[in-house]
């Protein structure tokens, strides 16, 4: 589904991603871990098309289409979804109108007929239940005055509504208490299927107890320095990142 080859990106002339290679197939969940400042969120931003990143080398393909050539909205319409680490508050834009607009544009792009008001309402209700997102929040201004947990749940609610192929969860667990973490994880688990894929970016292993990954990658200094299965996450939880950093700087780690 997603193929990243030798991806290099920089911000204001400073190189942040220094050659990422990653292959994600339908039905898979990949966790990307790493210490602060290793480039995890940058990778998410580059995939979603945030425009302050300059791509200096490499390629990104989504089901045979060149993602890097597309505007952020076209990437979303093609099926990329970024759950933001810090969802933006937009007073004056109602959550529901925003979703209606987004869904209409996405459906039109995919050649699907627009939903009737009734169908939209039904879908909204169904997805709200799926991610335990309260109806009263849906009718408020987009994220305005939402708690950290409510904002993250809203991200998963939007994800459920837009049914993307590839979802990137950027530190969705940050700022969540145990209950909220469980609700968000349950939502994601219900949405997993054989046709979609998830990249879960996280600093901590605890999210991966709930959303169990097929692969775990460690990002450090703009490179994937180690890949493994879910046991790698447990190893990191136990030993921290320092041993990997030391190995990396000693040249003992072969980067992908």
């Amino acid at each position, binding site marked *: 589904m997603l193929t990243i080859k030798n991806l290099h990106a920089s911000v204001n002339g400073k190189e942040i991603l220094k050659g990422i290679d990653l292959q994600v197939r339908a039905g898979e969940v990949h966790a990307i871990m790493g210490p602060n400042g290793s480039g995890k969120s940058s990778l998410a931003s580059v995939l*979603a*098309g*945030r*425009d302050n990143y300059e791509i200096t080398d490499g390629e990104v393909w989504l089901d045979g289409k060149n993602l890097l050539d597309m*505007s*952020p*909205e076209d*990437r*979303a*319409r093609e099926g990329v*979804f*970024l759950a*933001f680490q810090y*969802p*933006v508050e*937009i*007073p*004056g*834009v109602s959550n529901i*109108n*925003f*979703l209606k*607009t*987004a*869904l209409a*544009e*996405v459906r039109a*792009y995919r050649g699907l007929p627009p939903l009737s008001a009734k169908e939209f309402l039904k879908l909204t209700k169904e997805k709200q239940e799926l991610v335990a997102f309260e109806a009263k929040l849906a009718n408020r*201004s987009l994220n305005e005055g939402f708690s950290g947990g409510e904002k993250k749940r809203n991200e998963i609610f*939007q994800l459920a509504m*837009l049914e993307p192929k590839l979802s990137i969860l950027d530190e969705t667990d940050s700022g969540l208490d145990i209950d909220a973490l469980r609700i968000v994880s349950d939502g994601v688990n219900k949405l997993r299927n054989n046709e979609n894929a998830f990249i879960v970016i996280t600093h901590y292993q605890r999210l991966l107890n709930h959303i169990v990954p097929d692969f775990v990658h460690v990002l450090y200094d703009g490179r994937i320095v180690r890949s493994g299965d879910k046991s790698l996450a447990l190893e990191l939880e136990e030993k921290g990142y320092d041993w990997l950093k030391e190995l990396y700087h000693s040249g003992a780690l072969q980067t992908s």
Partner: protein
Amino acid sequence: MTLQETTSLYSQLLEAAGSMTPGDGTESISDLRSNALNIFREQGFPTGKNEDWRFTSLTPYTDTHYVPGGASPADDNIRQAISDTAIPGLDAYLLVLVNGSLRPDLSTLPQNDQVAIQSIGNAALTGAFQEYFHDKTYTGADALLALNTALFTEGCFMLVKQGAVLDKPMRMLHVYGAVENSFFQPRHLWVINRHAQATVIEQSVVIKGGNALSLTNSVSRIVMKEEARLTHYNIQQHDAGERWLQYSRVSQLRGSRYDNFMISLPGADLIRNNLELSLDDTATESHLYGLYLVGNGQLTDNHTAIAHQHPSCQSNEHYKGVITGNGKAVFNGKVLVSQEAQQTNAYQQNNNLLLSEHARVYAKPQLEIYADDVKCSHGCTVGQFNPESLFYLQSRGIGAEAARNLLVEAFAYDVTDNIEDEVIKSHVQQLIHSSMAATIAG
């Protein structure tokens, strides 16, 4: 020494005035009008040399020949304008004025034990009219006010009677007919008597022949008696070729509340609104909300002034502007708190969103505070879209254009959300939506 720049309209007006005797028989009004004519003769149309007109020179708009008073459009066209401007779902009274003259046959008016409406020409002879008209502010130095005072012919005098509470809003539709380039000078006087309550929505339409230009120099005086309440909407939805100058002076007595919504949509060549509040008594409350959307080649200028002269009054002002293309906006908000006006609360906020690198705004908050026991604040911002908000919307599949449109509506929300009447609110939001979609796309 003459200061005025002679424009075509200036010469034309003075030539016409020279052969007429200003006034309509009443000695005092006649004097007032000839004095006013002298003020205009001396000053002429304001140019950029006048501080209040620094960014809005009228020379380009007055250097044209205009027919004074215009021509009356056919009734069918007027009826069309009435239906074009209707607010869907709003149950309202309707007052139609054509070139400033009342058209009761096309209007649906409240009972006359509630509201008395008459032509300003007839009213001029009554005592009530003289009481309010003969106000020192009208002999003031403003050239446009003086010009209107000297040469106005039509307008309405509306008196909302003591204790009358209007059960429905009143839509006041000003229709002008411009077969050729035309110049209009309506004059209005509203008195909201003690304990009376009303909502008035003003709209204006020019029915044009071809590309005829129109210039309107309108003056309104609004008198709010004790405990009176008026909610006043100006929905300025205009077209190219239209130039609008509006001066409104509101005076408020004890316990009265005046709410104004100045909604200027993109379209007109020029809009200049002067809104002045004179708080002439204690415990008044005033809310001024403005939204100006300015498109390519357009200029919208809002000058507001609030004079706190007595204790315990509160004023709250929030104007927001969105400027696209090479449009230009001016906001000048003056708040005066004189020494006697203790326990004043006065808040002012002005925010501007520039959507292109050629868009301009000239913003000038002007606070003069001479009392010490007051709460006053003001803030002014000029910015662009928050790129993070734009990216957030785009990342959900919303196209850049639709995303910008949503953000403009969200920006306007701080103003529109204060509209209490849900029907009017949704109409205004719809107007913003459709006009900005057209403006951003265009």
